[in-house]
């Protein structure tokens, strides 16, 4: 019964300095302090992270799967948006 009253939080972990926080899952917790602790306990047991973000799941606005055609299909035909048509001088090195 009480379980349904505990809000859900989305967890984002940053593995190293310089990398972006990445979504890795969710936890139940009463508030943000407990959510951070739960995220630490559930998702960083094997040294996965140096920083944790938690965000109330309810705060996330998601795209509607039903709209996936109008959202994403137009991009499929626009291959010229991929940066594969440029000659990169050797001096630039690794990009």
């Amino acid at each position, binding site marked *: 019964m009480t*379980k349904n009253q505990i809000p859900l939080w989305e967890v984002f972990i940053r593995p190293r300095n310089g990398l972006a926080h990445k979504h890795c899952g969710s*936890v*139940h917790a009463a508030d943000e302090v*407990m959510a951070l602790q739960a995220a630490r*306990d*559930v998702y960083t*047991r094997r040294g996965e992270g140096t920083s944790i973000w938690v965000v109330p799941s309810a705060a996330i606005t998601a795209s509607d799967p039903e709209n996936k055609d109008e959202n994403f299909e137009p991009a499929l035909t626009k291959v010229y948006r991929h940066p594969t048509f440029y000659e990169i001088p050797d001096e630039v090195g690794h990009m």
Partner: protein
Amino acid sequence: MAAAAAVSGEALTAFLLRLADDHLIIGHRLSEWCGHAPMLEEDLAMPNMALDLIGQARTLYQYAGEVEGKGRDEDQIAYVRRERDYVNCLMAERENGDFAHTMLRQLHFAAFMQPLWQGMLSSRDERLAGIAAKAEKEVAYHIRHAGEWVVRLGDGTEESTRRMKAAVEALAPYVDELFESDAVTKAMAEAGIAPDPATLRPAFDAIVGPIFAEAGLAWVETQHGQTGGRQGRHGEALGFLLAELQHMQRTYPGMIW
């Protein structure tokens, strides 16, 4: 080792065994929750803490075995002694009860251990100082985790407040024993190895006091303080715990993992 020379090996062994037994026994208690926690998050959090504690116990048993010099390894000391040979505090062996009870027990123990580890950071015994450096970070998290739950349950629903208050009352008799001092603890303090527990009460109160205040919990003064753990006199609960804890070593003597 200069510090070890300042105290008898016997006293140092006795001190190390107390510390190790505390951590093994309360760590085992926490591990009993594995698979039974009220939610998945806690089902990982409690074994995480248990692993911290049992890890600390291991390093302490290894060191105790070396100082003792009788050729006993960590498993021999941890798993094949008799009940009366265990010198853990009674707080550590108390049964889990409900989740509130377990969290408060952990808070009490961690609030006792934090100043003790902090005092040992500058121990003249370098081995212990090293163990303390690792343990101190772990115990800080235990205080935070258990403390946050004590606040939320104490200041939660009618039901959670009732259970938290019951836990405060049930565990009150086992608090004073933590701060007992005797010949062993005094020898450690004089040799600069570890602070005397009797000096740690203000630090304990400074940790637990604000948490109780936030939780709306009142400290319960008890007239029925229990003692005897350091002399091997335990409650009924420890025998059952040891039966499970020692099962593998008793069934397959000398087995290794």
